[in-house]
């Protein structure tokens, strides 16, 4: 993957020399040209096109932004309701993610989304303990985390 990025940057520089124009805009155009070349050559050279991961990361960030706004709205509704009608609880969420930084990213994304807060890890790191402000249905809450954040993170890393 690092090699592909290096090739891409070299192509961008070659593009700048061919154009005889050393500005940022030309560099970006050259970078896009390099991306297209790598994209069309990906079958012949037998490598995994790296921009797919970048794209998955952008999708993860978009999902996070959407969840952030949605969950903020839910928490605001809870706070401003005259009667405090909530059922807080700590739920254990098993995760399939393997490496430490994937789990850290998952825990931080869960913490940043209002209404849920990562409290602890199990000793081997395979389970996250999450304090949720309103969990009428435990299984549904676990499934939602699996379907959104965990799935998106796996798309980036696999």
């Amino acid at each position, binding site marked *: 993957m690092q090699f592909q990025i290096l090739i891409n940057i070299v192509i961008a520089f070659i593009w700048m020399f061919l154009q005889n124009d050393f500005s940022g805009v030309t560099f970006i155009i050259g970078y896009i040209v390099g991306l297209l070349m790598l994209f069309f050559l990906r079958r012949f050279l037998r490598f995994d096109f790296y921009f797919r991961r970048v794209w998955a990361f952008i999708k993860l960030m978009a999902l996070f932004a959407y969840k*952030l*706004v949605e*969950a*903020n709205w839910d*928490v*605001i509704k809870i*706070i*401003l309701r005259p009667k*405090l009608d*909530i*059922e*807080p*609880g*700590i*739920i*254990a969420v*098993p995760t*399939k993610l393997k490496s430490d930084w994937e789990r850290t990213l998952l*825990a*931080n994304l869960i*913490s*940043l*989304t*209002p*209404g849920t*807060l*990562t*409290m*602890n890890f*199990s*000793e081997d790191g*395979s*389970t996250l*303990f999450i*304090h949720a*402000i309103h*969990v009428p249905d*435990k299984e549904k809450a676990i499934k939602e985390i*699996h379907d959104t954040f965990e799935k998106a993170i796996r798309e980036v890393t696999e």
Partner: protein
Amino acid sequence: MVIEILISIFLLIGGLLSLVGGVGILRFPDVYGRLHAATKSATLGVIGILTGVFLFFLILEHIFIGKILLGIIFVFLTAPVGAFMISRTAYIQGTKMWERTKQDDLKKYIETGETPKDKRS
């Protein structure tokens, strides 16, 4: 004109969210609930205000201030870590939870050391 209205909306949303976060700190019954209000609504509130300030200087004054963007990134990085450490310490210290708390999987884990199985496979 349009830009000014947009900046005002960002600032107003940021201020409102901070206010709601403050109300939440007063209203929630235990330390865990208060952490929700203090770290989350306030995070988005701070980001709203910072975005408004950034747009104001960028568009109306033509100054690009990278420090504000760095501020947003660092708020995003530090808020969840702080909340994680405070809640974890509170739980291990034995801070009582609200009496209406329904589930407590962490207590089970600390007593028996068992983690629930992944039901997906």
